[in-house]
């Protein structure tokens, strides 16, 4: 009975956030277009120097992914905070950990997955080989959930603050550095025909650690912000 109600709570949260995102499609699309445009500006600015483009591709795509995720993170809790839903969530008989996990999952599905799917297409502009495009896709697939999880901590802590958008970037971007290094490193390795396995394994390890600790830290942040 208890396991059932815990699961159904998780389902409620994810389904609700996906419905809300569908009703606010413009927000989701703006994040995606931001990512597409930032990545596409580099080949246009640098010109057809294939070797140079290929070597900067991992860094450019990954940095654009970090910045795009900053855009959507502010919204994870802000709307629910303003209309009082977050208070109700804190008062539910289910663990806050699960609610946070559900909201982060929904945010990842809505804001990050489209970006992961379109990244290989953008990689073609940088003259990447199909094998590197695949590694780019896998590294983003492993890395973007970490961005959502770590970002939710910053979103919770900056809730209700004026200028929260800038503050969240200052708080969270330094924490993204390991993800950036291993994610871009994996693609870089594959461009240089070295195995990307080490970098991808480390990304996987980071994901596990973030899954365990980030929702817990976010829950604590939410309780502080709502006092």
């Amino acid at each position, binding site marked *: 009975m208890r396991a*059932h109600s815990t699961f159904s*709570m998780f389902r409620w949260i994810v389904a609700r956030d996906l419905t809300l995102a569908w009703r*606010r499609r413009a927000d989701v699309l703006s994040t995606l277009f931001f990512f597409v445009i930032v990545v596409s500006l580099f080949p246009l600015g640098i010109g057809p120097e294939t070797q140079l483009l290929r070597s900067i591709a991992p860094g450019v795509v990954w940095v654009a992914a970090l910045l795009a995720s900053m855009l959507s993170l502010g919204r994870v809790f802000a709307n629910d905070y303003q*209309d009082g839903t977050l208070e109700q969530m804190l*008062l539910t*008989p*289910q663990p806050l950990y699960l609610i946070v996990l559900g909201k982060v999952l929904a945010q990842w599905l809505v804001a990050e997955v489209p970006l992961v799917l379109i990244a290989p297409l953008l990689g073609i502009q940088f003259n990447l080989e199909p094998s590197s495009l695949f590694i780019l896709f896998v590294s983003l697939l492993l890395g973007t959930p970490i961005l959502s999880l770590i970002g939710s901590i910053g979103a919770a802590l900056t809730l209700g603050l004026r200028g929260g958008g800038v503050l969240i970037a200052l708080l969270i971007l330094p924490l993204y550095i390991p993800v950036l290094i291993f994610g871009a490193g994996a693609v870089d390795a594959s461009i240089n025909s070295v195995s990307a396995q080490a970098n991808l394994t480390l990304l996987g390890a980071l994901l596990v650690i973030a899954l365990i600790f980030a929702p817990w830290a976010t829950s604590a942040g939410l309780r502080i912000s709502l006092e």
Partner: protein
Amino acid sequence: MSRVNAFPLKVQYNDAARKPTSTPGGIATILEVVNLECVRGDRRLFRDVSFSLGPGTLLQLTGPNGSGKTSLLRIICGLMSPESGEIRWQGAQIRTLAEEYSRSITYLGHRIAVKEELNSLENLSIASGLAGCELSPDQAKAALARVGLAGRERLPARFLSEGQRRRSALARLINCNTALWLLDEVLASLDQAAIVLIESLIGEHLSRGGMAIVATHQELHISAGSFQRLELGPSGMAPVESGG
């Protein structure tokens, strides 16, 4: 589902310390608030606030704007921690009960948690699902009809007036079997018919043995249960009066 089972209250005592005290009338005390003090920023809102509630009791909170009515309600539901003092539920501190306590309360605040993008039916079923008591579509429709939103179930909340939005938030109380209701300024922007509706909802809740704490300036006309009034004053004094 667990929320439905949480009421009627099962009182269990592990040791003498958890045993609730009795009020002079002989009714068991469920919620006990002892010497609560609240400080926001560098201002003390109130101190030495003490009261106890048993089944079927309504407590009306009054006091000028800024006297700490909302803070007191938020402290009682566990969203804020008090500067000093404690809150006991069936003899145990609410902090140690955590989710068990959350299952027994319903809080309706200033911010009513109605999403503009969702229609009334979605708002109601999601809010109830979050609170742990899922509603069937028929139950949800019946609840919305009772608050006067029949025919407007599928209208997004942004097309509703402020009063109608508040009514759709009130629909949550209809199938809600929690023991303690905490209602903050629920009468704001409501017409006379809706005020009568709230009064009857609270009355039904009290006659089932529930408890309610309502912060409002308006007179409540509720016949069932026993009634207490707590006035929070600007000077931090909090005299308690009891009445019929």
